[in-house]
């Protein structure tokens, strides 16, 4: 396996997935990678999952929507951004695979569908994969109603505790469709209510007692309306899976130097490897800076001896940062081994917060070794 720098990944790949636990700077990392794509002359789009307006703020635009927005700037390529709207992505998918407009309408109006398309956990991850596939294959519609294609799609995965949900989402849908309980629920329609076996009926009654009859009726009518679309969905899920495993797709792990996020990143790296997907890069954000050489013990000792004086305060401060940097480096030591030979990039905790293109550029300087 050849190791490529992040700059080479941005130049050569067509899809980069940023994965990691919540609060580690995934969204920022994704934005910086897309910006670099534009700088290298590529037509890049970044999809954020985060409902918060932070990416829009950082990119200097008023708001992000499900529609791709072009970010103007002084670069040879193009930079586009959009925010995943789970519900409308799901609606589009239904419209694509429905046999006719009437079937699509029945599903879109079903209460059970409205619930799962908006709020169900797991749907977000599933739709993130779906959006990624759509952007890669078909591009996106611009505000002028023109479809535009991209040559680099960067996706910021949902801030779930377990980043694996993203990998498994489309597979989970497929197994849901294949689930025998689902088949049991479907049995009444398939058999025209006649040949339903007694056990299945008893089972449905029990589920009904737990969740209430209305919910069950809604679910049954959803599955009835959905009938015939399973194959389309299953095929689509297989395409999404194939795209995630394609040579042009790379996973960049994002972590912060804390024990919990490092453990999770290591777990994710292992899972990727067992799925024959390799980590192409590891970005560790918010590393506390290290100032000067010397030994931590000596600084702390001087701080103690000189306590109460201005120079003592300066030594105490230096020792604080050194302790922090040492501890953080120790945390990521194991992780760098488990992603080898992928490059590990350390991004320092900056003296100011990342809030605009100029601060993104500071991060870029670290990511691309400028």
């Amino acid at each position, binding site marked *: 396996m050849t190791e490529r720098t992040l700059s080479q990944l941005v130049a050569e790949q067509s899809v980069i997935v940023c994965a990691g636990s*919540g*609060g*580690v700077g995934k969204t920022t990392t994704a934005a910086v990678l897309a910006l670099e794509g534009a700088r290298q002359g590529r037509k890049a789009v970044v999809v954020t999952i*985060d*409902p*918060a307006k*932070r990416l829009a*703020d950082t990119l200097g635009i008023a708001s992000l929507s499900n529609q791709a927005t072009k970010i103007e700037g002084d670069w040879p390529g193009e930079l586009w951004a959009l925010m995943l709207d789970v519900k409308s992505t799901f609606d589009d998918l239904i419209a694509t695979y429905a046999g006719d407009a009437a079937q699509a309408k029945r599903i879109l109006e079903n209460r059970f569908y409205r*619930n*799962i398309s908006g*709020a*169900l*956990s797991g749907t977000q991850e599933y739709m993130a994969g779906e959006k990624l596939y759509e952007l890669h294959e078909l591009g996106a519609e611009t505000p002028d109603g023109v479809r535009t294609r991209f040559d680099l799609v960067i996706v910021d995965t949902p801030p*779930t*505790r377990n980043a694996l949900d993203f990998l498994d989402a489309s597979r989970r849908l497929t197994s*849901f469709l294949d*689930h025998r*309980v689902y088949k049991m629920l479907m049995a009444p329609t398939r058999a025209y209510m006649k040949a339903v076996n007694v056990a299945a009926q008893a*089972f449905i009654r*029990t*589920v009904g*007692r*737990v*969740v*209430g*009859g*209305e*919910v*069950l009726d*809604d679910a049954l009518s959803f599955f009835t309306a959905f009938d015939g679309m399973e194959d389309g969905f299953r095929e689509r899920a297989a395409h999404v899976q194939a795209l995630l495993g394609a040579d042009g797709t790379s996973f960049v792990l994002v972590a*912060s*130097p*804390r*024990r*919990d*996020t490092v453990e999770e990143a290591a777990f994710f790296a292992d899972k990727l490897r067992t799925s024959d997907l390799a980590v192409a890069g590891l970005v560790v954000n918010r590393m506390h*800076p290290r*100032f*000067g*050489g*010397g030994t931590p013990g000596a600084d702390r000792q*001087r701080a103690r001896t000189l306590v109460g*004086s*201005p*120079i003592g*305060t*300066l*030594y*105490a*401060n*230096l020792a*604080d*940062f050194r*302790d*922090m940097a040492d*501890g953080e480096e120790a945390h990521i030591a194991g992780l760098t081994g488990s992603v080898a030979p992928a490059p590990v990039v350390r991004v320092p905790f900056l*003296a*100011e*917060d990342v*809030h605009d293109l100029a601060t993104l550029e500071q991060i870029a300087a670290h990511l691309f070794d400028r």
Partner: protein
Amino acid sequence: MDPASFLHASRVVIVAGKGGVGKTTVTAALARMAAREGLSTLVLEVEGKSGIAGLFEKAALTYDEVVLCPSGDGAAEVRGRTLTPDDALLEYLEDHGLKRVSRRLVATGAMDVVATAAPGIKDILLLGKVKQLERAGDAGTVAPDGTAPADLIVLDAPAAGHAISFLLSARGLLDAVRVGPVSTQARDVLELLTDPARCQVVLVTLPEETPVNELVETAFHLEDRVGVSLGPVVVNGVYPVLGDLDVDPVEAAASGDTTLRSGEGEALAAAAAFRSARQTLQAEQLGRLAEALPLPQLHLPFLFRSDLGLADVDLLADALRAAVIAVPEPSRSAP
């Protein structure tokens, strides 16, 4: 504010905030502070792997309660357990006379289908369990295994975006399901969440721009859409403010009769400049937070350690207590 009145305001405290702000650390500090005030405290985690057990230097939590920090030195016990929807569902079914089918429902994976059929049901099962524990506390019910109920229940909620849907699940379900046991459960949970005498939400943030923005957004969502009562906001990771950061290391060393080693002057100056910049930034953000959100702020210091243990939890519990005392007593005007 008197720590005791802060801790007795409600039996349930839900700690919520965006990922990475230290929700779990705050949960641990709050639990330990309460225990030292003599309240037996139960910590609940709902997503697994929260790291709360690690803070107390204990093995990962299980569905059954374990002691995280024993009583002693005038402090009550801190216990902990993890709540999972599957276990909560099993209990729920058994309590509703469905014991016979309950194992089968869970074993066949029907739980997944049920959860799909009624979104938010997993959240309701978890919150329903919290409500049951709260009620046991009110009634003084001793569990079958002999454990007495907790005086205070601290729930380490899911990360921000999910926290809103987690807490909204009761309202959502009430719209979708109007009769049956789930509906009853949702109604009970909503009653708990919206009663300030029973439950308050403590939001956690960092003194940085994005976390502050998100905290303000979450606070308004929770008040408007869920109707919960918000307790003080905890700002975690606040750099203790150092003075003297702008002195010249060479001059300071000379006046302190100290000789700097080679390159040390630059390192001291750079570290001081960095801290000074962060201190300025954090003061701005704390001010912005105070302006945007009229809630008392409790500041917890950044400890300059990347790994926290029991001793740090105690330190933070002390800091939290001091911060609560520093909050002015709310004026009690007649309604």
